[in-house]
C-alpha cells in the first residue's frame, strides 16, 4: 500500500523535479502512515533517493526505454503500481510526464489531478489544491477513485530532505510491440542551457525589444543569472524567437523563483503564464504598462539603457559574492 512516485531522470541523472516529487510523496506517505516506493528508469544513483524519503526503489534497466516513450513508460509505471498495490501515485509536471500521465490514468482507471501546488488539504477524503483558469484561480479538487494520481507543479512544493535508507530492487516490466507504436526519430534540444520548465530564474523579452538582433543583451543577462530565456507571444509569432520560448496562457507556464520581464506589456494572457513565479521584476519604459500591477519590483526606463547597467551590476555582485 505504499505511495508510488515516478522519479524522472535524464541520461541517468535524476532531474530536480524527481527530488521534488519524492519529497511530496514522502509527505503524503507520512499522512497515510506508509512508505514511498519509487520507479526509476535507467537511472544511475538510485539509492540517493533515500535522502528524499524514498525507502524502496523499483529499478528498471531497459535499453528500449533509453528514449522516452509515453506509452511504454506509462505501462512500466502502471506495472510498478500494481506490483506494490499502490493506490496513490505522484508524478511531476514535465512535458514528458504530462504526456504519460493521462495514459497512466486510463490504464489504472484512476482520477488524476495535475498542476497541484501544495501538499494535500486532506487525505481522507483526498483533496488537493491545483491551479485552474490558467493560473487565474485555484481549485480544491477531490479525487474519489480508488487509485489516485497527483501531478505536482514544478517548484511548487520544493525539495525537502528526509533521510531514510532505500533498498533497490530490479524490476522488469512486461513490454511488447504494442507499447512502441510511436517512434522517436529526432530530438532537437538545446543542450547546456537552462530550460524554462526547470529554471530557477527566467529572463523574458517582449515586443519592446524591437527586433531579434537585440536579444544579445537578454542572452547575456540570462547567462549572468544562470537563467533560461523566454518571450511574449508576439515575439515568437514574429519569428524573433522559437515557439518553445513563448510564455503565457497559450504558451508555457513559468514557475521560477525569479521572472524578469523586459519590454513586455503584461497582457492578461501573458500574466496567466507567469503568476506562479515567486518574484517578478519588470523593466518597461511605460509607467502605465499593466505588468507593473503584477510585479514585485519594477524599473520605469528604456530597456536598452537599463539592461546593460543591470548586467554590469550583476557581474560586480557576482564578483563580490563569488
Amino acid at each position, binding site marked *: 500500500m505504499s505511495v508510488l512516485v515516478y522519479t524522472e531522470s535524464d541520461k541517468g541523472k535524476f532531474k530536480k523535479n524527481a527530488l521534488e516529487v519524492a519529497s511530496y510523496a514522502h509527505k503524503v506517505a507520512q499522512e497515510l502512515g506508509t512508505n514511498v516506493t519509487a520507479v526509476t528508469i535507467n537511472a544511475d544513483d538510485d539509492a540517493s533517493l533515500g535522502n528524499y524519503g524514498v525507502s524502496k526503489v523499483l529499478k528498471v534497466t531497459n535499453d528500449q526505454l533509453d528514449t522516452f516513450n*509515453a506509452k511504454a513508460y506509462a505501462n512500466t509505471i502502471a506495472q510498478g503500481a500494481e506490483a506494490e498495490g499502490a493506490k496513490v501515485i505522484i508524478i511531476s509536471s514535465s*512535458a514528458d510526464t*504530462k*504526456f504519460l*500521465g*493521462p*495514459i497512466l*490514468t*486510463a490504464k489504472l482507471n*484512476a*482520477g*488524476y489531478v*495535475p*498542476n497541484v501546488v501544495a501538499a494535500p488539504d486532506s487525505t481522507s477524503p483526498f483533496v488537493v489544491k491545483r*491551479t*485552474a*483558469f*490558467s493560473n*487565474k*484561480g*485555484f*481549485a*480544491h*479538487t*477531490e479525487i*474519489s477513485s480508488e487509485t489516485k494520481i497527483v501531478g505536482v507543479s514544478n517548484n511548487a512544493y520544493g525539495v525537502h530532505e528526509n533521510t531514510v535508507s532505500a533498498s533497490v530492487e530490479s524490476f522488469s516490466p512486461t513490454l511488447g510491440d504494442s507499447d512502441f*507504436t*510511436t517512434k*522517436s*526519430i*529526432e*530530438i*532537437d*534540444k*538545446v543542450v547546456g*542551457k537552462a530550460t*524554462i*520548465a526547470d529554471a530557477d530564474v527566467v529572463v523574458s523579452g517582449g515586443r519592446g525589444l524591437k527586433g531579434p538582433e537585440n536579444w544579445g543583451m537578454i542572452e547575456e543577462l540570462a547567462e549572468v543569472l544562470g537563467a533560461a530565456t523566454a518571450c511574449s507571444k508576439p515575439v515568437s*509569432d514574429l519569428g524573433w524567437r522559437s*515557439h*518553445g520560448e*513563448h510564455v503565457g496562457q*497559450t504558451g508555457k507556464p513559468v514557475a521560477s523563483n*525569479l521572472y524578469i520581464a523586459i519590454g513586455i506589456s503584461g497582457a492578461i494572457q501573458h500574466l496567466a503564464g507567469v503568476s506562479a513565479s*515567486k*518574484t517578478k*521584476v519588470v523593466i518597461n519604459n511605460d509607467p502605465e504598462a499593466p505588468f*507593473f500591477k503584477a510585479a*514585485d*519590483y519594477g*524599473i*520605469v526606463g*528604456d530597456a536598452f*539603457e537599463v539592461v546593460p*547597467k*543591470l548586467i554590469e*551590476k*550583476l557581474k560586480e*555582485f557576482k564578483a563580490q*559574492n563569488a
Partner: protein
Amino acid sequence: MKILVCISSVPDTTSKINFAEGDTKFDTNGVQFVINPNDEFGLTRAMWFKEKQGAAVHVATVGGAQTEPTIRKALAIGADEAIRINAEPTDGFFVARQLAEVVKNGGYDLVIAGRESIDYNGGMVPGILATLLDMNFVNTCIGLEVDDSGATAMREIDGGKETISTSLPLVVGGQKGLVEESDLRIPNMRGIMMARKKALNVVEPIDAPKLTNDQKFEKPAAKGPVKLVDAENVGELVNLLHNEAKVI
C-alpha cells in the same frame, strides 16, 4: 480520411475569473465563450488536411445547449458536421469517455484535441481518449503530416522538440505550432450562412463515473504594490533581489 476535432468552449482569454455559489462554481456572468485556443490550432490544421489532401472534418463537444454558438463557429470556419454530447463536462475522464463513444461510432482515423483547455487546464482528455480506444497518441503536438504510409508528428519537449513517427488511427493533443497564428480563420458571411445548414447532432451522454470533483475555488491572494527602483540606480535592484527577495 475522417477527422474529428474535439472542441472545448472556454471563457475568452481576457475574461476576469470570478466564482459564485459560495466559491463552488465558475461565475459565467458577463463571460464570452470561445473555441479553446489550443483546439483552434487543431481545427485549422484539420481544414488544411481537408483542402489539400481531402478529408471529412467533424467537430465534437461535450456541453450543454449554451455551447452551440461555439461549435457553430467551428462549422462556419469549415467543419462539415458537429456533434454535441449533451452533458456538463465535469471531469477529464468523463469527457474522454463521452468522446471515445463518438470516435468509436464514427470510425475516425485522426482525432485532434487541444493539449489542454484554458479553463480547467486538465490536459488529460486526448491521452485518456487515445488509451481507451487503443489509438496512437502524441501530446503537445506542434507539427503534423499524414500520408498513406503513416503520420509524422512533432511535439514540444522541455527545451526543444521531438519528431515522432507513428501510424493512424492517431490522437494528437495539439497547440500553437500546428499552424501559424496568422493562418487561423475568422468565419466569413458565407461560412456563417452555410453553417446554418450543416448538421449539429445532439447525442445523449453514456454513463461514466466522475473520478474527480472540484469542491471549491479561490482566487490568488491580492498582491502588494510594486516597489519601483530608479532607472539611474540599477544597483538598488540587485540589492533588493539579494537581500529582500533572496532570489539571487
